[in-house]
């Protein structure tokens, strides 16, 4: 009897948690399909579906252009971060040299410095470099990631030294060792970090808000925010449709990569 009550209450709690967790997503999709009349009359269940909301959001918020910009910017950042972070993480994890602890300390210290604190000097610097309102201006400040170096180093630490020794005996240089041994073995961590980085930079709002001005540099979240603050008034269905368009890519990516992402991120704990 007691066990059954416990069992039932557990499932009720889970149900409540899932509903609260999913409700905003459900409501977003529901509203994105709502005919204007239903929203105006405050109807709970929709009388019909209106896909025109998506067309309105797409054209009025200029989402086609901004989605293209978002894809270019996000992929450029992720690629550059992998190019800079993977070799650095390898050296910090597996190649002893003088000053390695200092280098590691700098990386850990940078984890504590949020973008926001560096925002003003970065803004001035990007302006002086003539990169304001340009695609490079959106990408360049994020070319490397202290978090990425840290996460990948944690993963590479677990590669057995013997394996690297064997690679060296076979005459592989650092570069070949990295390419043929380290990268394949650190695959889950690299995948997890890439997904994390896509989330972060696709969703980033603050930096584009600061430097993007013209249609060709505006990223999807910024386009949505401008659409909301513009003269659209209370066109909730179109806003919700825009929100769906901005949200869908990351949610789909998460659903596909979920297992690897969660496993790969578990190494992210800062060691004591």
């Amino acid at each position, binding site marked *: 009897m007691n066990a059954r009550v416990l069992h039932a209450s557990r499932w009720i709690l*889970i149900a409540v948690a899932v509903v609260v967790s999913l409700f905003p997503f459900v409501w977003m999709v529901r509203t994105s399909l709502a005919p204007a009349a239903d929203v105006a009359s405050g109807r709970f269940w929709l009388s019909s579906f209106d896909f025109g909301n998506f067309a309105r959001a797409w054209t009025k918020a200029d989402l086609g252009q901004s989605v293209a910009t978002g894809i270019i910017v996000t992929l450029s950042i992720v690629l550059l971060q992998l190019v800079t972070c993977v070799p650095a993480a390898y050296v910090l994890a597996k190649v002893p040299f003088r000053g390695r602890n200092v280098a590691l300390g700098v990386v850990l210290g940078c984890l504590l410095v949020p973008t926001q604190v560096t925002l003003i000097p970065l803004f001035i610097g990007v302006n002086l470099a003539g990169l304001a309102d340009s695609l490079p201006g959106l990408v*360049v400040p994020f070319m490397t990631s202290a978090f990425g170096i840290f996460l990948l180093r944690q993963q590479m630490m677990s590669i057995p030294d013997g394996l690297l020794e064997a690679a060296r005996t076979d005459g592989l240089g650092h570069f070949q060792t990295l390419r043929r041994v380290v990268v394949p073995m650190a695959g889950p961590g690299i995948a997890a970090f890439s997904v994390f980085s896509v989330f972060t930079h696709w969703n980033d709002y603050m930096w584009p808000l600061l430097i993007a001005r013209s249609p060709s540099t505006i990223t999807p979240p910024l386009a949505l925010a401008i659409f909301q603050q513009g003269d659209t008034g209370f066109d909730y269905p179109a806003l919700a449709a825009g929100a769906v368009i901005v949200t869908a890519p990351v949610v789909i990516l998460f659903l596909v990569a979920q297992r690897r992402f969660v496993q790969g991120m578990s190494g992210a704990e800062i060691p004591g």
Partner: protein
Amino acid sequence: MTATETELSAPPRAAAPSLGEPPVRTVRRRNRGRSPLVPILFLLPAGLCITVFVVAPAVLSLIGSFFSIPLAGGSWGFVGFANFSRVLTDPTVQQAIGNTVFYSVITIIPSLVIGLGLALLAESVTRGRALIRTALFLPLTANLVAMAVVFDYIFAFQGGVVNQLLGIVGVGSVNWLGDTSTSLVTVALVGVWRAASFAMMIFFAGFATVPGTINEAARAEGIRGFAKLTRLTLPIMKPTVVFASVVTILGSVQVFDTINVMTEGGPQGSSETILTETWKLGFSYYDLGSASALSFLLLVVLVGIGLLQRRVLAGSAR
């Protein structure tokens, strides 16, 4: 094969502590076919980027907080602590600091408690666990601007679903985002919705680090439920708990996106926070010196939290 591997891996490890003056033989062997320049080349891109885009700006931010900075370029004027005293005596900034503290207090504890509870719940069921986990992780991926737009509608004064539901139970409509007494709490609800999901993921990953033998021993000793959680699981997962706390605290102190979209700090500054205020100082009033000072004060708080975390963890190691 295995023996060779162990033999080969031994010398460099043994030689590592005496790097200052290593035996010649070891050096030759370590560098066979490998340039010592390569590690430097591997570190260089990341090192340069970190120096230019993180370290230098952070230092400049500190220096800049002692100057008045013209936005258009030109020379900086040294003003001593004037920026600091200006921001700290400005009633708007004081309100923003107070709001940030209030927002943090009402989001941090609920997010951690709910996150831990959700992780325990999801862990305790066998049927449909993957599905439940996915559903509970989803807020973590959400684009905050898109979600802010959605929550803006959910909490809308007229036609918002929350007020409609309240109407059914006979409670009058609340102007959630438009009233000075509720605006910050409403944005904080969105913060908890998201942060709890993040905390849950961290706790969930942390459970995997608890050795299975511990669970068996606890079962044999008859330690279950709340006692097991507080006396066994959480102490073992201390690094996870500290990490989850730090992530949640940092996220709360730096809240920006949701506020900027849902309330723009209003009404009457009632939901202004340190970051939105820094933003206004710097990029609406072009007072970059004061904005630097405020952002530097924020950095001091964040580094303090980081150091505290290391202390707590170092304490647990002993």
